[in-house]
Each structure stands twice: as structure tokens, then as C-alpha cells.
């Protein structure tokens, strides 16, 4: 079984790094969607089946916090696993995000092994 994964980050570089790391981690991917901000991410979710979302926090137009808040409003956050990938190191901010319903938090930099462990857990692999 392969999965539809959405990567939301305003940096094309980081989206490429995440794509490369998913590939190195041998995560089975059907479609990998990319968005430059939360609004683009919501548009993709509206039009496609998504199994897992990776999102950054600090982005223009709509940041990751607002994106997660809207997923909460639409009652999607319980069914759609969201993983925040960020340089944010504050434990206060991470606790807030977990309370908002995200399933996991990956602090940059992360290894392919760490990414694989999170994906395996959330998608029931391994």
C-alpha cells in the first residue's frame, strides 16, 4: 500500500529535503503533494485524499498554526495525521501544538530513521 503525503513549507529547498528524506527512508508514496503555505495546503486537502501532512510553522499567507486551527475547526485533525517539522525549539510552542491536535513534532535537523519511525507509527507501517 502506498500513501498520499502533503508537504507544506514555503521553502522549496526544505520541501526537496523532506522529499529526499522520505525516499531515503523508503516510505511507500503514491502521490507527494507540495504546498508553499497553509492555504495552498487546505486547497490540496479539499481536492485530494491525503494520508499524512508535514507542515512548517512560519510561512507567509497562512502559517502552520492557522492551518492547524482550521483543520481543527473542520474536525479534520483527528482523522488526518499532521506532523509539524520546524526549527522551533521552544517547549512551550511544541506543547501548544500538541494540544491543538498534531500527532507528532520533528525538530530540524532530522534523520531518515527518525522520519521513518514517525511515518511508520502514524500510518501503521513496520
Amino acid at each position, binding site marked *: 500500500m502506498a500513501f498520499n503525503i502533503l508537504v507544506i513549507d514555503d*521553502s522549496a529547498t526544505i520541501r*526537496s*529535503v523532506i522529499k529526499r528524506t522520505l525516499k531515503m527512508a523508503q516510505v511507500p508514496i503514491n502521490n507527494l503533494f507540495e504546498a508553499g503555505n497553509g492555504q495552498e495546503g487546505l486547497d490540496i486537502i479539499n481536492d485530494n485524499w491525503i494520508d499524512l501532512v508535514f507542515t512548517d510553522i*512560519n510561512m507567509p499567507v497562512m502559517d502552520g498554526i492557522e492551518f492547524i486551527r482550521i483543520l481543527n475547526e473542520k474536525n479534520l485533525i483527528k482523522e488526518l495525521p499532521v506532523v509539524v517539522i520546524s526549527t522551533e*525549539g*521552544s517547549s512551550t510552542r511544541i506543547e501548544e501544538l500538541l494540544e491543538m491536535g498534531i500527532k507528532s513534532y520533528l525538530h*530540524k535537523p532530522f534523520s531518515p530513521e527518525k522520519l521513518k519511525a514517525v511515518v511508520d507509527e502514524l500510518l501503521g507501517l513496520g
Partner: protein
Amino acid sequence: MKIDLFSIMIESILEVIETVAFLVAIPVEEVDDEAGQADCISIKIDYTGFINGSMYIKAPYAFTPVLAANMLGIEEDDPNIMKKGEDAYKEVLNIICGNTLPKVFGKEPVFKLSMPQIAEDILKEIEEAGPKVVSRINLDIEDHIVSFWFTTDTDLPG
């Protein structure tokens, strides 16, 4: 307990270079700042919070394709390799800064990071800003000398 900024920087930078770019870096002591000045790219990021400061990276243009290729999994002869490499430097600096701050100041404080941008002359900029603390690390990465600076506008706690 006194904060060992140099060791924290080394740990953060090596971890990021190894994990994100899959490159091995070796600390070196002395570098000639005058040599090859025009052939280097310099990037800066500012952080603001209960303490403010900046981080800088300076690297030879010749290292740019190496970093981009390793980070992005592309070929070094990619037609846009230099632009992609500039973005790669910015992301590396962003990650290093985000990784270093909680190690220096603890995990409670929230810092805001600026968008990384090109710096003209790092040494001149640091001299003019007059920070309280300046720490510098020089690394040999694939036979290229890459330098990093971390500055704060007040003394470090402890």
C-alpha cells in the same frame, strides 16, 4: 554553570551539516580572512527574543554546488545549482540557528528568526553592531573552509 558557546556551536553545526547535507565537517583553528574574500558567499540570520543577536555563515562559491547537490539530491551540474545552493545555505543557517538557541538559552524562551539574507561583509557588520558576545567556528568541509559566527547583544546567562 558557564555556557560553553563554542562547544554548543560545534555540536549544532556538525549535527546539521551531517544530518541535512550528509557531509562530514572537521573544525580548523586558523583561517585567512583576506584570502578569497571575493569568492565567498555570506548569509546572515537575526534572532530576537529576551536576547537578540545574529548568526552568519561564510563559504566559498566553489562549495555551493557540493552543498546543494548533497542537500537536494541533484547533480552538481544542475543549471540552477548556484541559486539552489544559495537557498540551501539560507536553510542550513536557519536550522543551525534554531538548533543552537535552545541549547544556549534553554527550551522555554520563544525566539523569532528573521528571513536569512545575503550579508556584505560579516567582519565589518559585526564590528559595527558591537555585540557583547561573538563566537566563531571554522570548518573544513570537503576541502572547503566554511566559517560560522554567533553573536548576542548582551552577556550570556550564567
